[in-house]
């Protein structure tokens, strides 16, 4: 028995329609998209475009502004390095994943940009004001997660995006923990949305998306074959090809399309409601455990993720014992240096992140197992 509560890392299991779409893509879409005129290439090209269209429709973008990437990290690197290639000032939130924080920090360490980190508070007013106070004449971009990957906290990103719009600052959103759970639209003020295809969108691993409103052109990270202007040594400027050098992961794109279709069929509000219910149920069970610390503050909004600790028990130890009982939870620092610094969690936390296929029974079984493990001699003796 395996029960996955590590869906913030990647969702599992995947919906049946996604698995079928992957099999169908393997069977039928074995050509190379946008390259060649034979039937295999043509139907593969059409399939990839249909995946672009589905993602565009879901997020309120144009199909040509949907760029398939290998993951959210790659998309964020493309956005951050692409926008900041000419230097300038950048602001990132204090709960960014390393996928945004590291490329930004690397550019700052090389002296290419100046970087500010804006703490995220439980008080949205204070958070928005902090971002505003850090904005300068030379601020080119703000990177803000739509939901933090450690605690699930949702910053007041629409307000921050509005502040950016007023100042002609590019607003880059990390949607890895939000897309497929929260209703996200480019018209909410997002200039560039970076997200994973394999988390809340239920595609396979190795998929990500960069979606732009086209307002801020990106310098490509890599150049190469695009299937267009082949005799020129200059990278073509048209999206999406200019940012999609090399053969895209067509099977992955088809899985993301099927995942989005699944979300739309199930209704995104219903998915969020279901996952939030599971979190509430888990939190109420945790509250009955002596020493439980839940990293949530009143006044703040959260995506369906719960980070917790039990007293001084090392998170990795408890997660390992729960893993032996078949429960998959991620312990440690979750690739999020800034968030753990802000939380002051020196040993990290254990993260509970449900998805569509988890049930109340799964949550109860996990809570019972935590109690059972904690009652064991090892824990009673040492903690």
């Amino acid at each position, binding site marked *: 028995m395996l029960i996955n509560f590590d869906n913030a890392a990647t969702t599992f299991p995947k919906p049946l329609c996604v698995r079928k779409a992957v099999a169908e893509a393997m069977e039928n879409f074995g050509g190379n998209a946008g390259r060649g005129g034979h039937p295999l290439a*043509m139907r593969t090209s059409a399939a990839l475009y249909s995946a672009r269209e589905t993602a565009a429709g879901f997020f309120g973008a144009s199909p040509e502004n949907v760029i398939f990437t290998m993951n959210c990290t790659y998309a964020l690197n493309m956005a951050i390095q692409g926008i900041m290639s000419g230097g300038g000032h950048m602001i990132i939130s204090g709960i960014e994943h390393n996928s945004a924080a590291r490329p930004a920090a690397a550019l700052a360490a090389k002296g290419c940009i100046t970087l500010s980190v804006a703490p995220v508070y439980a008080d949205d007013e204070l958070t928005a004001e902090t971002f505003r106070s850090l904005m300068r004449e030379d601020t080119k971009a703000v990177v803000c997660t739509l939901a933090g990957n450690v605690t699930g906290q949702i910053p007041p990103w629409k307000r921050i995006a509005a502040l950016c719009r007023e100042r002609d600052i590019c607003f880059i959103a990390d949607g890895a923990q939000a897309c497929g759970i929260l209703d996200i639209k480019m018209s909410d003020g997002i200039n560039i949305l970076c997200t994973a295809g394999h988390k809340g969108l239920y595609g396979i691993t190795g998929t990500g998306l960069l979606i732009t409103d086209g307002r801020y052109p990106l310098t490509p990270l890599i150049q190469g074959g695009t299937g267009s202007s082949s005799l020129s040594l200059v990278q073509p400027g048209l999206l999406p090809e200019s940012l999609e050098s090399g053969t895209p992961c067509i099977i992955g794109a088809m899985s993301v399309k099927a995942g989005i279709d699944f979300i739309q069929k199930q209704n995104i509000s219903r998915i969020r409601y279901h996952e939030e219910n599971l979190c509430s149920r888990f939190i109420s069970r945790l509250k009955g455990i002596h020493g439980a610390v839940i990293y949530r503050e009143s006044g703040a909004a959260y995506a369906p993720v719960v980070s917790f600790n039990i007293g001084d028990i090392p998170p990795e130890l408890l997660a390992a014992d729960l893993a032996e009982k078949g429960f998959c939870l991620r312990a440690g620092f979750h690739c999020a240096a800034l968030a753990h610094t802000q939380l002051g969690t020196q040993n990290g936390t254990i993260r509970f992140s449900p998805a569509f296929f988890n049930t109340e029974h799964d949550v109860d079984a996990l809570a019972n197992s935590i109690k059972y493990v904690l009652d064991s001699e090892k824990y009673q003796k040492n903690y």
Partner: protein
Amino acid sequence: MTVCIVEMPSYTYAVKGEKLLSSRGYPCKIKRNTNASPGSCGYSLFIYSSSEKAVSILEQYRIPYTRISYGGG
């Protein structure tokens, strides 16, 4: 019948153009170019009706193209 052949700079815009024109009642099809043209992606829109109007719709919706030629249907 004369066919208007609109060479496209990318496959993505070829599909976008095809869908736009088809939805406006202009029958067209994406085909691979028989003569490779340097600035193109190798695909063209073959438009089987009033080409002037169709091309003006592409321009109106800012769908780029690289060249227009005419051939037999």
